[in-house]
């Protein structure tokens, strides 16, 4: 009844959805899986009306429709349960449920709270939640909020003639096992009234709940698997199955690292809000890759090494010195460099030129008594523009106007020129085109050759496998498995996936 027919969506530089065909039947639960960046979230946004497709058609009961915004999609029975809480915490449950649709309970702008509470009670009953609708939302548990979200979407039932399609985006990520079971039971019951599109990282859950599963990769639907034929490893194959080229990741340049020396060592480190103890060490020349799904704790580890997050307990030694206080200034002084994921926000300062960006982390070194030696700065910048062949008209170029790859090179020169020998790379190739990615891979090998230790959170699993000496798989904040990645003896994608999900 709901159908997408060869839907296309392009963004500048990215072809996010390539001729997607998708349909969902009345009362069906459809799973949607794919790696980060496969196009799942774009597809969902098209479905609930936040994006408009550039090509193809959306059909409801065979008739083409067009949504300019989510509200119009809601009018046709399409609702979204967001992964990130979309309830306003300081409002009551009933206000959240009817936010934007209060008119039915108001006369001359005055709200009839009794009527709204009664109606909210009815909605909450649908999701079997017995709470006072006048409760302030911030007082609820995560699981309860998730159910209130669902109840909010289910108000479509009364408003809409016809069928409902409800999208569930990672609904289980904050729920306990028991709560997940309850949610699934509820969703199954509700299929008498609505169809569901279920998106999750957790393969087992998708397979348990869905009638059919769409597997996406690189903006395309790779396969549609019926529940009866679903096989976890086969689906994973399709999710990640990409041509992997050893040349591409410069594997021939991977040399053994110097295991006799240690750059930093974490022993029994416990991070705030996580129960697990972490042990990790980095050696000169080593590329250590942290692998896991979003929220598995990769970022927290990077942030700890960079000094933005202080561990609760455990011993953290850097270059033979035990660390007691944690702040970025101290880390930078000890030779830690950080290439953040949000390049344009945390990586470069747009509005400042190349030399200003390069020396930002080491102003002390290019100044005397607080006065900057600009001539030396410029010389340094020219040097690195040449070394890394940064495409900028001169050291005066505004970094905000450089291409993504060149911005990344500026960030790398910032740290390398300062002599950082512990580099933290968070998705260093995100949003770069292939040529620029290869440049980054080359730079990673160069750094290894220079004895720099690198902690990498890669954009894809292949990248992680291709680049690293050591892979550490994380799940739910704990280290699940370590892999040694000598060239020729690298683990496969499925070895990693097996421990990730």
């Amino acid at each position, binding site marked *: 009844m709901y159908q997408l027919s060869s839907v296309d969506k392009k963004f500048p530089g990215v072809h996010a959805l390539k001729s997607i065909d998708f349909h969902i039947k009345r009362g069906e639960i459809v799973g949607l899986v794919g790696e980060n960046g496969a196009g799942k979230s774009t597809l969902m946004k098209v479905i609930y009306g936040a994006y408009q497709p550039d090509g193809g058609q959306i059909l409801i009961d065979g008739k083409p429709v067009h949504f300019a915004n*989510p*509200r119009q999609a*809601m009018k046709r029975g399409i609702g979204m349960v967001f992964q990130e809480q*979309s*309830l*306003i*915490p*300081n*409002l009551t449950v009933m*206000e959240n449920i009817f*936010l*934007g*649709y*209060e*008119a039915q309970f*108001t006369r001359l*702008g*005055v*709200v009839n*709270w009794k009527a709204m509470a009664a109606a909210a009670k009815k909605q909450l009953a649908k999701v079997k939640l017995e709470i006072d609708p006048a409760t302030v939302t911030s007082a609820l548990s995560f699981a309860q909020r998730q159910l209130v979200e669902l109840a909010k979407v289910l108000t479509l039932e009364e408003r809409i003639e016809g069928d409902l399609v409800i999208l569930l985006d990672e609904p289980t990520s904050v729920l306990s096992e028991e709560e997940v079971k309850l949610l699934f039971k509820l969703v199954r019951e509700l299929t008498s009234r609505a169809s569901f599109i279920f998106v999750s990282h957790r393969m087992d859950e998708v397979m348990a709940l869905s009638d059919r599963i769409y597997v996406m990769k690189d903006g395309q639907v790779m396969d549609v698997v019926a529940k009866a034929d679903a096989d976890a490893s086969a689906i994973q194959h399709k999710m990640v199955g990409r041509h992997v080229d050893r040349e591409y990741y410069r594997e021939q340049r991977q040399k053994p690292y110097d295991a006799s020396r240690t750059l930093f060592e974490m022993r029994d480190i416990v991070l705030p809000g996580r129960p697990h103890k972490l042990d990790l060490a980095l050696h000169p020349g080593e590329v250590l890759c942290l692998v896991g799904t979003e929220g598995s704790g990769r970022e927290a580890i990077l942030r700890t090494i960079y000094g933005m997050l202080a561990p609760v307990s455990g011993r953290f030694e850097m270059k033979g010195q035990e660390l007691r206080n944690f702040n970025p200034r101290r880390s930078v002084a000890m030779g830690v460099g950080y290439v953040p994921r949000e390049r344009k926000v945390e990586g470069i300062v747009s509005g400042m030129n190349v030399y200003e960006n390069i020396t930002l982390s080491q102003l002390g070194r290019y100044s005397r008594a607080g006065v900057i030696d600009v001539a030396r700065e410029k010389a340094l910048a020219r040097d690195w523009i040449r070394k890394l062949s940064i495409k900028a008209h001169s050291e005066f170029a505004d970094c905000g106007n450089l291409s993504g790859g060149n911005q990344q090179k500026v960030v790398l020169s910032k740290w390398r020129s300062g002599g950082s020998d512990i580099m933290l790379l968070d998705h260093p190739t995100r949003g770069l085109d292939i040529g620029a990615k290869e440049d980054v891979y080359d730079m990673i090998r160069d750094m290894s050759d220079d004895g720099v230790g690198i902690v990498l959170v890669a954009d894809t699993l292949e990248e992680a496998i291709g680049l690293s000496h050591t892979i550490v798989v994380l799940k739910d904040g704990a280290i699940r498995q370590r892999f040694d990645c000598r060239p020729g003896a690298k683990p496969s994608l499925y070895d990693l996936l097996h421990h990730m999900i």
Partner: protein
Amino acid sequence: MKMKLTRENVIRWAPALVLLGLVVLFTAINPAFLSQRNLARIALAATPPMMVALGVTFIIVMGSIDLSMEGAVSLCAVLFCLLFLKLGGSLGAGAWLAIPAILLCGAFFGWLTGMVHVRLQIPSFMASLAMGFVGTGAAVLVTGGDIVRIDDDVFRALLTWRILGFPLMVHIAVLLVLLAWFIQNHTTLGRNFYAVGGGEELAHASGVNVRRVRLAGFALAGVFYAIAAIFQVARLGQAESVTGANLMFIAITSVVVGGVALWGGIGGVLNAVVGVLIVNVIGNGMVVIGLPNYLQDGLLGVLVIVAVVLSTDRRLVSFAK
């Protein structure tokens, strides 16, 4: 979780406790503080700032700020006097029309501030600051820097007619507080202020017309500023371009000290009432116990900082500008 609960409770009850403590303190030092005459004096002094505070509360609940009240009140006060005189100079003789006219005028001024903020996408603190200057400037322009007097016994009854020892305007102010409370808790508009303050993007995604809510909020605040202007005129018997002077500091301080969070979504009309009372009790009490009242601004400055610091969850704010 437990920590958070106590924190929230502290924030919720601190203003009321502070008020109580101040009253006890001043009474202990000088029992005359609690005399009916003195209470009436406090209530009277608190009335115009109370109206301004009510207005700005709606704005702060939305997570914005309005600093235009001095200009708005001055302009409204001046226009009110001029209009009042033009319409006969007596409430009985048709000059009452000046009251609804000036309320509309206030709404328009507020709406204009809202337009500058929403349409030109200028942060509200600056948009309203500039509009405040424009308002004061307009008041100077209209009066040419002169003072406009009103001598109408019927109108001045707002000040002179006492019921239970309190001037009439205090009773009207109480009714207006109830009205503001009703708007806040029982109208879609009032609740939408909270939705915008609690999560603007989420409210927008749910189909709340955020721009319209903002404009309505500024217009509503403007109405309350106009009421403050009328009370101010009734109290002083005159208006000039500085009639609204110092109201910005007192009103903002009151609302924040009363427990309305600058980040939006938390607190409301009752907090503003408590805040205004705290500020005025301090001002009055310092005089009663024999301290120079000009220490008030400094003390309020300190209080406002304490209130903001207490109500800010620094884990959620990465940096302030």
